[in-house]
């Protein structure tokens, strides 16, 4: 059971977090009645702040919960997250400065703004926006699952733990909604820096202290099944395609593009993107916790008190609690808690931007700037509570699987958004068909791979072994988009010649 020392450090740091969130309003002041001021912090963020902001998008509950949980339960396959983050920054380094430059010239705030302008199609732009909004929801839910895991570990052994946990989450969300409403991306950026400091302290302490307390890494790895030491050769295609599919998908998420566009210049964006793989070092350390925990009997004993399906998500918080002094556990656990809260705020803001600019405004083009910002702020609040409600209703393990489905969906906007930046010959109709078929085939394969039951796998068995579904459906989508555009261009040429 957790002691008062841990609770004191947890709560006092949370108060500091709230203060920073509200203070964001006054930081680098701008007129927050403008959408780009509220949601892009006035496009004034330099190398360091963009590094922290995009890092906050990446260093989410996905890293604290989903990855260590996957390694704990399934072994080395889930270490794909490390090469995935490396590759994703390569993709971003090539594509995002171009998107940034176009966005600055033409005043885009979202990827859908670009798609609409580039292809002159409201249909395609609305579809891209809705895909983004839908794919983002389970990602937010995953953040809440991460926060929940911290509370579960902290409250274990106390009376009425379940109710206290739900009320605490609700309070945390009301506070979050309040400061994103008033401070916008400025509040999120300040709290992102705060969160990252806590997380980096945690990662550095854990990577030194835990191996010492368990008698070295060798000890942890020598008592473990072989599929935790290296990757079984049958899973190599799965590993490679999970890297590729996830790397291509990350920068298509609305919140990532939001972070990119808040940069001050294309070159500053390049620099911070180039440095972002270093963030992965912390991710690797957290991932290793899924192995280290096996060597900590007290933590394993604590975990055995929970049903097998929910043990994974509790690995990191319980390992911290059972190897660190109480006061430090409080700091680390708060880091993980706000590590879910900050990204959730950024994601909900990005969703709200899409909904207002690229869906509502398509149907009601004449709304004033003031009304636009109000709708954006209110819908960002609504999205947060939808995700929260989702977590209360759906079991935690299910939320992680839905996040994988989100990845499959968001990958389908790649032809329009990323190839649209470079390839002149692409046409809107094949892109629309490709997007629809990509989503349809992706959902079908997920269902088929899970025998139309609860979603637990996102790999599809093919002649080449198990492959991440996002890669298969994206390939289908790309073939349709490119061959369709080629055919259309050829027909057009023939027509103009005759």
């Amino acid at each position, binding site marked *: 059971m957790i002691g008062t020392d841990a609770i004191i450090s947890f709560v006092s740091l949370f108060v500091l977090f709230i203060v920073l969130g509200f203070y964001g309003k006054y930081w680098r002041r701008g007129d927050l009645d403008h959408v780009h001021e509220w949601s892009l912090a006035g496009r004034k963020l330099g190398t360091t702040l963009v590094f922290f902001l995009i890092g906050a998008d990446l260093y989410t509950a996905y890293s604290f919960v989903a990855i260590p949980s996957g390694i704990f339960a399934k072994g*080395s396959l889930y*270490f794909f997250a*490390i*090469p995935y*983050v*490396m*590759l994703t*920054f*390569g993709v971003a*380094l*090539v594509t995002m*400065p171009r998107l940034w430059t176009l966005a600055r010239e033409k005043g885009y705030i979202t990827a859908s703004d670009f798609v609409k302008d580039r292809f002159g199609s409201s249909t395609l732009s609305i579809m891209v926006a809705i895909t983004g909004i839908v794919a983002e929801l389970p990602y937010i839910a995953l953040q809440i699952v991460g926060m929940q895991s911290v509370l579960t570990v902290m409250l274990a052994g106390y009376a009425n733990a379940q109710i206290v946990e739900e009320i605490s989450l609700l309070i945390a969300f009301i506070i979050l909604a309040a400061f994103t409403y008033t401070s916008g991306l400025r509040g999120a950026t300040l709290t992102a820096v705060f969160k990252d400091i806590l997380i980096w302290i945690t990662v550095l302490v854990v990577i030194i202290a835990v*191996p010492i307390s368990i008698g*070295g*890494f*060798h*000890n*942890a*790895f020598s008592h473990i099944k072989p599929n935790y*030491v*290296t*990757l079984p*050769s049958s899973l*190599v295609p799965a*590993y*490679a395609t999970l*890297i*590729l599919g996830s790397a291509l998908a990350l920068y298509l998420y609305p919140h990532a593009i939001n972070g990119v566009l808040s940069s001050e210049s*294309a*070159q500053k964006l*390049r*620099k911070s*993107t*180039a*440095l*972002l*793989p*270093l963030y*992965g*070092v912390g991710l*690797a350390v957290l991932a*290793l916790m899924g192995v280290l925990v096996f060597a900590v009997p007290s933590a394993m004993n604590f975990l055995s008190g929970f049903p097998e399906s929910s043990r994974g998500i509790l690995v990191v918080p319980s390992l911290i609690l059972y190897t660190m002094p109480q006061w430090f556990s409080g700091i680390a656990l708060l880091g993980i808690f706000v590590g879910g809260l900050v990204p959730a705020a950024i994601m909900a803001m990005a969703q709200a931007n899409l909904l207002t600019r690229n869906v509502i405004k398509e149907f009601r083009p004449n709304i004033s700037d003031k009304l636009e910002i109000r709708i954006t702020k209110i819908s960002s609040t609504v999205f947060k509570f939808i995700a929260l409600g989702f977590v209360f209703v759906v079991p935690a393990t299910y939320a992680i699987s839905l996040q994988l489905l989100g990845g499959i969906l968001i990958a389908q906007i790649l032809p329009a958004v990323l190839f649209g930046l470079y390839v002149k010959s692409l046409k809107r109709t094949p892109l629309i068909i490709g997007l629809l078929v990509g989503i349809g085939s992706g959902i079908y394969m997920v269902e088929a791979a899970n025998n139309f039951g609860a979603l637990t796998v996102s790999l599809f068995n093919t002649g080449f072994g198990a492959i991440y579904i996002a890669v298969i459906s994206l390939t289908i989508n790309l073939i349709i988009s490119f061959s369709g555009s080629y055919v259309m261009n050829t027909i057009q040429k023939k027509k103009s010649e005759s």
Partner: protein
Amino acid sequence: MQIKARHVVLVLLILIPSFVNLGVPIYNRDVPELVGIPFFYWFQTLWLFATAGFYLVFAHLKGKQT
């Protein structure tokens, strides 16, 4: 010609780290260990630093170009 050479360098700076990342058999082994950590884990973690190096050079060259 110089522009072409620079272009090739830029492409390689992105492709080399990507090739290593996706070439799973390159690092899918347990030895040599580093402070008790199997090769599979420590190599991928340290490769992050190398990747950041490649990317920084890319960013630098690209910045000069524009």
